[in-house]
């Protein structure tokens, strides 16, 4: 058997479009190792993305794949999962894709607790369109549309997903590769809506304008702003500012949507037979 994750690549699609030093490739590696560890067949895996650099992932992997419209990966994935619940459905989205234009779909997918794994590549910027600020750009950072510093507050995607009804929520960063692979694996195996947010570097669209020009500088900065959840909880309030906790935020077992739907169908069909 081929143990390398390269078995999942569509080799004819390479070279890829990502910039040198981009974090997306590292995350793709983690995703594929996690998928490999589940033992799932390629035929049963469906990977759906929206639009953006992160969303280009689906073009390079040999599953049933879909590169949809900006922000809409989750409702497309929902239709697929409901039509064929046996399929293993994974979505991959950028931070703008998931939390701006797709924010409402994200909240409602969590609320339904449908058995889909959502991977969010949070590079804190609109990468593909050239560095406009996103709902995840930290306050004060620069973007091409925030030339005087971003005045918006940024979202906490993990807290949002947890409060909206998801089953599993974790956040990692592109620096701690083994940890994100572990989180993704748990998310894939979780019955219910599972979310893994990964803080990633975009040296081109985020780094350049924010004086983090090289991939190394960007990774070091990401390392400096992310703190393990345990440690973060013990920090005094003033030190929490500007820091992002990483770790598992939620891991619960609650009724899942496709199963609830099937139960409803069974109950109705049973009722009709008894009539």
């Amino acid at each position, binding site marked *: 058997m081929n143990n390398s994750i390269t078995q999942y690549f569509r080799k004819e699609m390479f070279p890829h479009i990502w910039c040198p030093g981009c974090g997306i490739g590292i995350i793709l590696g983690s995703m594929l190792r996690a998928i490999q560890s589940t033992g799932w067949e390629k035929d049963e895996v469906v990977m759906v993305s929206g639009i953006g650099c992160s969303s280009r992932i*689906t*073009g390079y992997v040999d599953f*049933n794949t879909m590169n*949809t419209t900006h922000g*809409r990966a989750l409702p497309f994935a929902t*239709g*697929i999962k409901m*039509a064929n619940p046996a399929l293993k459905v994974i979505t991959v989205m950028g931070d703008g894709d998931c939390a701006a234009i797709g924010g409402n779909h994200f909240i409602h997918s969590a609320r339904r607790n449908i058995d889909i794994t959502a991977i969010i590549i949070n590079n804190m910027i609109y990468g593909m369109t050239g560095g406009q600020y996103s709902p995840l750009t930290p306050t004060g950072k620069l973007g091409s549309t925030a030339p005087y510093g971003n005045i918006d507050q940024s979202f906490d995607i993990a807290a949002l997903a947890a409060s909206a009804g998801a089953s599993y929520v974790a956040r990692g960063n592109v620096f701690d590769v083994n940890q994100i692979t572990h989180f993704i694996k748990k998310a894939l195996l979780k019955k219910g809506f599972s979310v893994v947010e990964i803080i990633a570097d975009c040296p081109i669209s985020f780094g350049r304008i924010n004086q983090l020009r090289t991939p190394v500088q960007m990774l070091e900065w990401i390392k400096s702003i992310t703190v393990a959840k345990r440690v973060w909880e013990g920090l005094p309030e003033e030190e929490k500012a500007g820091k992002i906790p990483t770790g598992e935020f939620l891991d619960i077992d609650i009724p899942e949507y496709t199963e609830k739907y099937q139960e409803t169908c069974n109950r109705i069909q049973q009722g009709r037979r008894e009539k």
Partner: protein
Amino acid sequence: MDKNRSVRILQGNEACVEGALLAGVRFFAGYPITPASEIAEGMAVRLPELGGVFMQMEDEIASMAAVIGASLAGSKSMTASSGPGICLKQENIGFAAITEVPCVVVNAQRGGPSTGLPTKPSQGDVMQARWGTHGDHPMIALAPSDVNEVLHMTIKAINFSEKYRTPVMLLLDEVISHMREKVNIPTREEIELIDRKKPAVEKDNFLPYKADEDLVPPMANFGSGYRYHVTGLIHNEKGYPTSNNKEIDQLIRRLTNKVELNKKDIIIEEEFLLDDAKVAIIAYGSVARAAQRTIKLAREKGIKTGLLKLITLWPFGDETINRLAGQVDLIIVPEMNLGQMSREVERAVGGKCRVVSYSRVDGELINPLEILTRIMEESKL
């Protein structure tokens, strides 16, 4: 008598549900809106009984996305809405067009623009039906004019979407949606059902966007073992994004041509008393009902009038209209909009006869007498 075959009094929206279920629709996603809600409500009752899926999504964008996803996974899928919701669906209607995913969108038209007239009929969305999503793309749109026809045209819409792998619009209006009429519900055996073509080649040789001679590529459902990529980017036969001029040109032309070159199969129209006519009415949807009465009234007055009732609005049936223009002196196009189809008729007529538009946009149906009055005014000239 077969217990599935029945005569029932149904509302247009209910007939749409019956037609869709008969045609094999097993996935519906929607969002509430007047005057389309009864379609979702009917599906919410019926689909779980049949083991199908009904979902109320968070908005119309999501409904359209879910419908496309479900179709890719192998379900015949449908959504229904009205003006404001159809606007939101346009983004993903374009996605279905370029990725060639079969699906049906019902538009129970109400007055627009914007929130407009939620409880009044309109035909203001006929151009939106054709060109609502951006870029050159194919479109099939059907406009039934009575409840029985709603049932049959819903089946046709599903069949066309499967056959040509394209989104199909079913255009109702508030009157057709809500009025009740007698409907003959056929049995499964009595109707023709069309399913998407399956690939005939080995999995390794599968080119997901390589079309057959009919310009339609066979379609593999997700999970069937034919793994491929579906993207809203312009793509080549392999389904991969391309910036090659030749491949771009090929895709865009093929998408449009697979519908335009199959017009013979897709155009559905009916002719009434046209053989000796000197005046023709061209009408569709609920206005065609009024026009059917008008032609009789006009003949009583000695004006030889006939009706061409369009059911397929898109692709547009130029040929019949052009032929008709060589026979009649006057074509009158009554519509509940400011002449959207009348301009299309003028184009097809190509100057061969006079084309007059009769419009009503006040939320009221056009009645037979007003069309007659217009004909009398115009034929005096």
